[in-house]
């Protein structure tokens, strides 16, 4: 046992220097999108952004989910945020993120993204060992950036269209592609992983933690939107598209 400990410690020590400057953003990694506002200076054509043939049903489930949020998830999350210790919260967050890392590793690999695979593997390795199973996010401390890749993004990377926007009760917003892909991710194990800004994660402590950090912004969006449903839909689809095209911060 002691022998293994030293071997692992040695390997970790070897690995660290390689990661120290990983945080510096390099110019060639920044991807941009030239949004096509739709030949629109004089409004030549409609800008087609959303494919939402199930809008009627979606709005129904969206309202239902909003009620679940208002009466259940929101109060629980606010209690969690205000009354549980900070260390408990960071543990919940770090452990759930660590558990999900293999999904990122696998999908970064499937997309042939060596750098993300490498860094995510490094994260998983460092946090599972020195980070005591993910309780401490040591990887971030040494400058190993977090990434998020799931099977929906992999399919998108290889050209599979998102398909119709679908809101399901409890599970929240998604698209046909991502909903089907979610099954593959959860068979990799561990977690139903759909992580746009507005999450459709399954209920659990991870959900509460995630929601507790979004609740303020969601409240404000609801308050300042003239069509909350359309607002969230646009938000979700754009953010997802950015994730597929690797244009986000992680």
């Amino acid at each position: 046992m002691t022998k293994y400990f030293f071997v692992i410690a040695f390997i970790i020590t070897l690995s660290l220097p390689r990661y120290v400057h990983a945080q510096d953003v390099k110019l060639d990694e920044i991807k941009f999108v030239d949004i096509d506002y739709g030949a629109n200076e004089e409004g030549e054509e409609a800008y087609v952004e959303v494919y939402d043939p199930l809008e009627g049903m979606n709005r129904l489930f969206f309202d239902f989910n909003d009620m679940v949020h208002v009466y259940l998830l929101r109060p629980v999350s606010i209690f969690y945020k205000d009354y549980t210790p900070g260390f408990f919260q960071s543990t919940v967050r770090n452990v759930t993120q660590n558990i999900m890392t293999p999904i990122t590793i696998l999908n970064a690999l499937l997309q042939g993204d060596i750098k993300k695979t490498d860094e995510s593997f490094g994260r998983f390795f460092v946090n599972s060992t020195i980070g005591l199973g993910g309780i401490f996010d040591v990887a971030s401390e040494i400058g190993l950036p977090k990434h998020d890749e799931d099977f929906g993004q992999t399919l998108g990377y290889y050209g599979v269209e998102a398909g119709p926007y679908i809101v399901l009760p409890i599970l929240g917003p998604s698209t046909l592609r991502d909903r089907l892909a979610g099954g593959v991710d959860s068979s990799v194990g561990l977690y139903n992983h759909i992580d746009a800004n507005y999450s459709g994660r399954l209920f659990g402590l991870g959900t509460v933690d995630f929601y507790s950090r979004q609740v303020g912004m969601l409240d404000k969006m609801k308050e300042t939107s003239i069509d909350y449903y359309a607002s969230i839909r646009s938000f979700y689809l754009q953010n997802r598209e950015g994730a597929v095209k690797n244009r986000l911060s992680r």
Partner: protein
Amino acid sequence: MLAYRLFFVFALFAFSTTALAERDLSAESYVDAIGKKYITALTNPASSYAKRSDKFDEALRNHFNMNRMGKLALGRYWRQLDESKREEYISAFNNFIKASYTIRFSEYPTASYQIVASKVLKGDDVLVATMIKSEKLNNPVRIDWRLSKKSGEFKVTDVIIEGVSMIVSQRSEFSSIIQKNGGNISALIDLLKEKAQTVNG
């Protein structure tokens, strides 16, 4: 483990060739100037709503091309408005954006930013990418600023936060409202006015 390390030594070589993107340094310094002037004032939790709202108004007037933004946000419906309706819409759009984003800013923590890249697009618009960092944020947030030249000067025409364009989002919301009202654009204008008022009230 050795194979793993060797693999990455190889990968490191493979990816060390850097293709330099086309940057626009004057656009970057323009964004930097806005950032220096406003980021603290807008995200300072100590300052009041009225103060932040004034600051934001000042930023919008000096650095944003609100006419163009309003036009883009309305999309194809713009053409259906006559001159006086256009003015009415742009003014309602202005107040709506000011009110709703001042509220949203109050959720943003005090942060620092870093300009990481820029790119000149077709038609001379420039995108400037910034990373926002804060102790309160788990991960850095990427914000892109789309600049276009108006009588020789840069003005902001879109803000893209983690892939979410302000113009695209507003347009999506606006067209949803117009469609719900059977193509009546005045219904949207009324709603914008109403919302700006309730949010301010």
